[in-house]
């Protein structure tokens, strides 16, 4: 809480005028995710440049931007894979994520789906979901874990949601690309996180699969906050959520899909690359 009160003004932003980022003038209170003045550089390359972003509780947000805009780095910072050089990253307006490792952040209720579907290929579909199940994930608790009836039913339920009920016993490695994407979304659902981060959830999917996924996400979004990084504009439009455009590591524009698509800076960035 102490950090929360000092966070918004603490970040020092000294930037050339032409790249002044759109800064949300908001307090972290009431937000599920609050990024302020976050910078990350790799060997001098600024992957994130004083990025500020606020996601409200229950909000769905889509994030777009050209290659190298810092979308994946942003996900890495939120999930603890990369530590920011400067800036604040707060979860639920109070928890400082920069001090925690990946496992601790996942246990807080932040789930992540990777750009390249990453399921455990040598485990069955059921076992993949079982690993994602929200429960005590300590080493000894895991060693003596016993699947209860309600937990088994929960897995069955998710299997139904992602349409893999009849493939539960198959190795995840045998699934098609789209099915792996769904399995990974199913794993996110098993985690019962409050905040889900999805990196290109429809990459490599057919149009039909993309539509189904959009419906699935909208359904999920009723109970939790979701951040979707996506290239597919049709998909972004179908989600109908607020859009944030990233460019060179900071926010370039924010608003509805029509607003940002009409923004001349956004057009310039996309056409001029």
């Amino acid at each position, binding site marked *: 809480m102490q950090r929360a009160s000092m966070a918004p003004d603490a970040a020092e932003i000294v930037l050339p005028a032409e790249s002044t980022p759109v800064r949300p003038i908001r307090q972290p209170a009431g937000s599920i995710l609050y990024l302020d003045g976050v910078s990350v550089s790799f060997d001098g390359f600024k992957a994130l440049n004083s990025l500020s972003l606020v996601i409200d509780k229950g909000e769905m947000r889509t994030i777009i931007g050209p290659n190298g805009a810092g979308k994946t780095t942003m996900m890495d910072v939120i999930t603890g894979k990369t530590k920011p050089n400067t800036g604040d990253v707060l979860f639920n307006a109070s928890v400082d994520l920069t001090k925690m490792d990946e496992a601790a952040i996942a246990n807080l209720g932040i789930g992540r789906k990777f750009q390249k579907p990453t399921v455990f290929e040598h485990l069955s579909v059921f*076992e993949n979901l079982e690993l994602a199940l929200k429960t005590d994930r300590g080493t000894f608790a*895991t060693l003596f874990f016993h699947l209860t009836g309600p937990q088994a039913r929960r897995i069955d339920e998710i299997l139904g949601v992602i349409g893999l009920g009849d493939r539960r016993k198959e190795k995840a490695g045998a699934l098609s690309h789209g099915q792996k994407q769904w399995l990974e979304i199913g794993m996110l659902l098993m985690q019962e996180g409050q905040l889900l981060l999805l990196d290109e959830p429809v990459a490599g999917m057919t149009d039909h699969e993309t539509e189904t996924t959009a419906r699935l996400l909208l359904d999920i979004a009723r109970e939790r906050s979701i951040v979707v990084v996506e290239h597919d504009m049709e998909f972004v439009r179908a989600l109908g959520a607020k859009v944030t455009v990233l460019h060179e590591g900071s926010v370039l524009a924010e608003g509805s899909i029509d607003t940002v698509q009409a923004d001349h800076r956004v057009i310039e960035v996309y056409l001029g690359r």
Partner: protein
Amino acid sequence: MLLMSRLATLESRRGWQVFLILLVLTIVLVPVLNLTLPPESPFHVPTYMLSLLGKYLCFALLALSLDLIWGYAGALSLGHGGFFALGGYCMGMYLMRQIGTRGVYGNPDLPDFMVFLNWSELPWYWLGFGNFWFAMLMVMLVPGALAYVLGWLTFRSRITGVYFSIITQAMVFALMLAFFRNEMGFGGNNGLTDFKEILGYNVQAQGTRIGLYVASALVLALGYLISRYIVTSKLGRVLMAIRDAESRVRFLGYSVTNAKLFVFTVSAMLAGIAGALYVPQVGIINPSEFSPANSIEIAVWVAVGGRGTLYGAILGAFTVNGAKSFFTGAAPEFWLFFLGALFIVCTLFLPRGIVGLAAQLRNRAARRAIPSTETKSKEVGDAASEHGA
């Protein structure tokens, strides 16, 4: 009740049948054939053969322990010979303290080599090893503690793959150099030998040998069941997940460091127990047990048998060591060539070892029968043109 139902799930019904049959054959049939049949009978198992099998059982336990960390968690430890030898030294220290006044110098407290070095009293780290229970505790704790500390340092820093192998290999090499030194107080390059008694029984006696053999078989069976419990638990699936995609497991909220640390420590303890059973059966433990090549050889046993199955490791230990005993007797100069060739053949043609061979042959037969979509496009093309013609 819960434990019993959990135990039943360790193996399929057929698996339990095979397990029990093998266990009975090993602990009942072999000793009976040794004790009851006259030496001229073709079915008589000579005592030297029984001891040799006892040694193999210890190697099998050692291979099993390596499979737990390599086959399941994907971390190839090339230091398991070190944990084995540490367990062996703990047992050796107990056996040395049992010699008492029967040593060459007749000193009731000091082993001969310490008298020879003009030491006047037992070093502090030898205290307590006169007690069997204390020595047995150390057999597990010393390798376990070393694995815990080394594992904590490496896994926490996310050192994986070949770097982990190199670090563990460096560890055994350092241990070997240390144990070669006389000042260490472990008998220098002669090691510990000339044992007389274990728990009051003469280590050379036939009855003691049978006892040690049966103990090795029982401990191997128990070690197998413990390992089986771990790999069939949810933690076992977490380990396999770590093997496949380590960083992904972290984003699910599991501590990869703790999971690996747990299995590495358990594995080192099993290796230590194997060493402790081995030493009284061969009658000596010296620093050559720490030699890096020994640790690599263990990996060969597991690779030949087939990793990630547990029973494959046991099979591999028996196969390779059986071949080694045969070759070193029949054609000693060819053994190393054979070992090298075996490793190459396994790597190239049997990636899943002997246990994978059956599945591989079945797959090939199935593929010949129906050229499925999994076959190479060329083959599919050939098949299609045949249809056309």
